[in-house]
């Protein structure tokens, strides 16, 4: 049983590179990075984001992203936003999307994941858990 689980995990990892991209950076202003594991990659227009990435902006930094389910983000200055969980099946349009806003500000227009199933999209702040039922909103963490 355990061996089967390990095998399943390995299979997932092996097939993940082709599906690693969950969204694209559409706009960058000022200082902004994407933290991926121990790497700190400068945020660039056309750059990709993956599940587990942390998007961080400096005092003058702004980043806008469109995800594969058509969710759109705009992060303001002094933000730290983790793309904790993202799954999207573009055939069934079902999935799960959990974002953590540690600090800063984030505007969101929700996409197909939130549209298809109730509370499939969540936003976590240091004090609260939000269930996203559509469509356009702003979260500030100071």
């Amino acid at each position, binding site marked *: 049983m355990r061996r089967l689980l390990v095998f399943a995990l390995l299979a997932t990892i092996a097939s993940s590179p082709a599906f690693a991209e969950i969204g694209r950076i559409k706009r960058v202003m000022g200082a902004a990075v994407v933290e991926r594991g121990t790497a700190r990659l400068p945020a660039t227009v056309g750059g990709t984001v993956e599940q587990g990435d942390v998007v961080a902006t400096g005092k003058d930094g702004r980043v806008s992203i*469109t995800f594969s389910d058509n969710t759109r983000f705009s992060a303001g200055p002094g933000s730290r936003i983790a793309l904790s969980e993202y799954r999207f099946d*573009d055939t069934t349009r079902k999935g799960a999307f959990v974002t953590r*806003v540690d600090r800063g500000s984030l505007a969101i227009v929700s996409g197909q994941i939130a549209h298809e199933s109730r509370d499939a999209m969540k936003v976590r702040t*240091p*004090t609260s858990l939000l269930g996203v039922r559509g469509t356009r909103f702003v979260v500030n963490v*100071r």
Partner: protein
Amino acid sequence: MIGPRLVAALVATAGLGGCATSDVLLLPGENGASAGAVAVIDEKSGNDSAVLAQANERARLSSGRISPRTVNPTRIPRRDRRLIEDLPPPPKHFTLNFQEDSTRLMADSAPVLVDLIAEVRRRDGVDVLVIGHTDRLGSAEDNDALSLKRAQQIREVLITQGLDPASTRAVGRGERDMLVATADGMRAAANRRVEVVVR
């Protein structure tokens, strides 16, 4: 002279500053769409402890009772408005139609292809999903192959026009996603199509 009392007050303030306060503001939907809703979920019970369901409702997110309040849209802070302005444009959808059992475009889809190419060029950091479909004439297997060929052909056109191959993906959905529902074996011009999502 800074007295011990003032120091204590400063420390207390700093302590409060370190403890994050958050709020959420629900906006009207885009282009006149309804606002939808955002729920504050109580993690112990899984129930909603508050729901914002009206446009321009704002709630402070604290550990105590959460009471959403409607704000005057003209008094939404400048920094929030700036964030909204910086959202990427909504994805744009295009549909191209094809001749029967063929990867040849219908004549009336030629201008759509021109518009598609212009939209792809206009967008910064563009990525494009190309989804091919068929009608239900012929076998499901043949239609899977034909739908993918149609999608790949449009993808190739976009690449020839300068789109980075890493920014576009083609998939074939065969006869599964009919635009117009028909019985198996039926011709349907509307179903012979490629849908393109430009993000």
